[in-house]
């Protein structure tokens, strides 16, 4: 890299100390980075890598005194930020350095209007009259492409959509043309189509303003989409940094290589002749409408149609993907099929028996044939139970001898590649991926005919995600499992599913073999979805590790 101009932000040997009793003494050990004007620097790392804390250090917003800067320098436009008083920092924040946060819902004050919150920045730093400020704020809303900026100005955050909220955040951050914008996972909470729009917006505005952007993310797809320069963090240490193209396509450090190798590519497996096998799960004409509970003043609210007339068939040994964005009804499908929710109409046949027509007693018996793996590895295991009991619970309920069930649970732990020594621990003593393995073991303990997996890897870091997906693939192969796989992530779907169903607003817009859908999407929505996959033009260079 050549030094053309002095960077806006220079971080030298930054070290951040964690409170006593944490798993390591320093959250960040010797971070060095430069951000130049007009450059987007991506800081990539898995959870716990210290990437968010470095942003906090630059803004001087660390949760002191628990977490403190232990050493190093942060220079912004030639000034030493660490030496500044709080009052001086306050003048910088929001003005010359601004920040965009991850969760647009919680990052905006629910009690103030959008306009008020944008106006606050202007009031604090611009010193103009109210009219002027309002005009400026509306102008900013226009620039972030919010439809009808005047009415958005008076709206409360809960009255606009998630994507619009993030646009408001961006408008707020860029309102005073800062020199440096720090974006902390700004698109992680958004749907894929919205994500692409926001990334584009950031990129465009940054080009216009010429600001430097420090962009924090965990997603290599996003990196590929947006980065000029990449820094890879692991456990508080920089393992690799360099221009985007170089790091993405020719990573040097084994960790980077492994991370990149974990990113599922967009090449679906060749399709197997699954449709000829016997059907194990068949949904017919499923429909579910949520009659929302009454609001405070309004009494009844409009009912929401979650699933509209859904039919599908799952064959023996097949993996059927249900793909869609939030609000598409895909999660409702997983609950209807397992009858955790009662459908308004339709039938779910498991091996020819209609689950929805069962009496409560019959239903309890039927449940062992259709098991589920849940999304949130934190929430899906009872925190007050030991792992062995969690896994053995199902068989015991269905009359298995408790001792035998526990012995079987230990075997299953081995099957999901966990040490049986872990059997007597509680869920919180495991990592997210391990918990998801326990969840899989619990489902397998019942020896079900069908497993419904609801976003089983979406809460996991990319490297862990790859390992869990691999395990699922292996088990499917070994045990001839039939999987109904619900996901929002097209990369994951591409990797695992034989066939997919694409859903939008409760309706199926397209269905077919994965490879065919990916190669030649018929419906505009599917096309849009595929086009929005971040970094879709980038193919991870090599697969040195053993991901499937």
């Amino acid at each position, binding site marked *: 890299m050549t030094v053309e101009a002095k960077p806006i932000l220079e971080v030298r040997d930054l070290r951040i100390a964690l409170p006593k009793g944490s798993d390591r003494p320093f959250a960040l050990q010797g971070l060095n980075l430069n951000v130049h004007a007009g450059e987007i620097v991506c800081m990539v790392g898995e959870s716990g890598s210290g990437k968010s804390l470095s942003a906090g250090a630059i*803004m001087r*917003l660390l949760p002191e005194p628990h977490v403190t800067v232990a050493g190093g320098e942060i220079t912004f436009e030639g000034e030493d930020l660490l030496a500044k008083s709080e009052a001086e920092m*306050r*003048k*910088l*924040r*929001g*003005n010359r350095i*601004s*920040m965009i*946060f991850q*969760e647009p819902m*919680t*990052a*905006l*004050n*629910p*009690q*103030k*209007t959008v306009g008020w919150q944008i106006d*606050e*920045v202007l009031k*604090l*730093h611009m010193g103009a009259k109210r009219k002027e400020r309002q005009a400026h704020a509306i102008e900013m809303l226009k620039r972030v492409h919010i439809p009808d900026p005047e009415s958005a100005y008076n709206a*409360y955050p*809960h009255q606009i959509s998630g994507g619009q909220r993030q646009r408001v*955040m961006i408008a*707020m951050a860029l309102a005073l043309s800062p020199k440096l914008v720090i974006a902390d996972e700004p698109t992680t909470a958004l749907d894929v189509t919205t994500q692409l729009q926001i990334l584009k917006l950031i990129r465009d505005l940054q080009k216009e303003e010429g600001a430097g952007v420090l962009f924090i993310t965990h997603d290599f797809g996003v990196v590929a989409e947006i980065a000029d320069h990449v820094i890879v963090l692991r456990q508080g240490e920089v393992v690799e940094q360099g221009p985007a193209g170089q790091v993405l396509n020719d990573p040097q450090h084994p960790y980077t290589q492994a991370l990149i190798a974990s990113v599922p590519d967009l090449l679906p497996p060749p399709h197997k002749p699954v449709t000829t096998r016997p059907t194990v799960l068949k949904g017919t004409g499923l429909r579910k409408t949520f009659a929302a509970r009454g*609001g*405070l*003043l*309004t*009494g009844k609210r409009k009912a929401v149609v979650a699933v509209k007339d859904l039919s599908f068939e799952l064959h023996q040994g097949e993996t059927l993907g249900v793909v869609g964005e939030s609000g598409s009804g895909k999660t409702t499908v997983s609950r209807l099929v397992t009858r955790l929710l009662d459908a308004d109409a339709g039938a779910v046949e498991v091996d020819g028996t209609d689950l929805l027509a069962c009496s409560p007693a019959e239903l309890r018996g039927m449940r062992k044939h259709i098991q589920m793996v849940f999304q949130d590895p934190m929430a899906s295991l009872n925190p007050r139970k030991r792992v062995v009991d969690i896994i053995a619970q199902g068989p015991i309920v269905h009359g298995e001898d408790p001792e035998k069930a526990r012995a079987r649970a230990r075997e299953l732990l081995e099957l999901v590649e966990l040490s049986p020594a872990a059997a007597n621990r509680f869920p919180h003593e495991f990592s997210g991926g391990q918990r998801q393995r326990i969840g899989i073991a619990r489902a397998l303990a019942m020896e079900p005919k069908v497993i419904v997996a609801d976003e089983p890897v979406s809460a996991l870091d990319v490297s862990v995600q790859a390992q869990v997906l691999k395990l699922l693939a292996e088990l499917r192969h070994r045990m001839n499992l039939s999987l109904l796989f619900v996901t929002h992530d097209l990369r994951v779907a591409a990797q695992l599913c034989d066939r997919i169903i694409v859903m939008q607003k409760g309706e199926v817009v397209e269905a077919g073999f994965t490879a065919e859908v990916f190669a030649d999407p018929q419906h505009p929505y599917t096309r849009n979805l595929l086009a929005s996959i971040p970094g879709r033009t980038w193919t991870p260079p090599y697969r040195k590790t053993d991901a499937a």
Partner: protein
Amino acid sequence: MKPTIPPLLIYALRRLLQAIPVIILIMMGTFLLLKMAPGDTVDALVGDMGGADAAFIARLRAEYGLDQPIWVQLWRYMVKLATFDLGRSFVYEQPVATVLMDRLGTTLLLMATSLSLAFSIGITLGAFAARRAYSLADNLISTLGLIFYATPSFFLSLMMMLLFSVKLGWLPVGGIKTIAGFYTGWDHVVDVARHLVMPTAALSLIYLSFYLRLMRSSVMQVADQDFVRTARAKGAGETRLMVHHIMRNALLPAVTLFGLQFSTLLGGSVVVETIFTLPGLGQLAYQSVIQRDMNTLMGIIFLCSIIVILVNFLTDLLYARLDSRIELS
């Protein structure tokens, strides 16, 4: 098209409809409960009089309708209640409504001053303590809050009376006004205020500690939220954070508590009103229980239900006003 009814009115009507079964439940429950108590108001009356002969007692019982079967009494009472007739007080020999209205003013005054003092001081101190969490000032405030909380109100009342009335002679011992003082205008206001100082303090301290503790944790919780971090990243100072971002959100749980505490407060005022001889509903309720003055006690509970339901309705409106997430229409 139908003429549009204001949403507030619809909401009020809906709440009223929900409240009616609760009130009926309360009234029937209380009636039957009181009937389970040993002895009736005639026993209490005869006890007060220092005795009476049998014929006299029997005639009184018939006069009050207490010789009827319980179901007949209940039915008669509920029928009258449906026309908002609360009956006559056995003890005061006046319509219950008159008796209640006499007492309501004092009680409302006492409760309003106590609650608003407890609310405002508790919230201020709580917020202050939270912003300086774990400092000396915080520890001091929190300890004070705990002591307020742990001290029985009657103990506090007696101690205050000893100090301020007997030893120092600053405040009157009890009552709501100086009897035969014949104050008018501003003097009357000052006089009543002087009489209310100690009862208000005795009654409000425990609630003050509730609000203090609630507010402290609420402010600390809100201060941790993302949007406060956002405001900080915008360059907002501590005062601004507190005023514009933290307080309004942190107030919400306190407002909820406000609605719930109203009836507890009325119970708490029994002891305080007794000690300070305040002619309020709390004392009246206690006396009515002891004297088995069914109609009066039922009337108090009826009035109390209405007040509580009204207060809850108002706090809900206030909540909706404070929390923009709750839509008004």
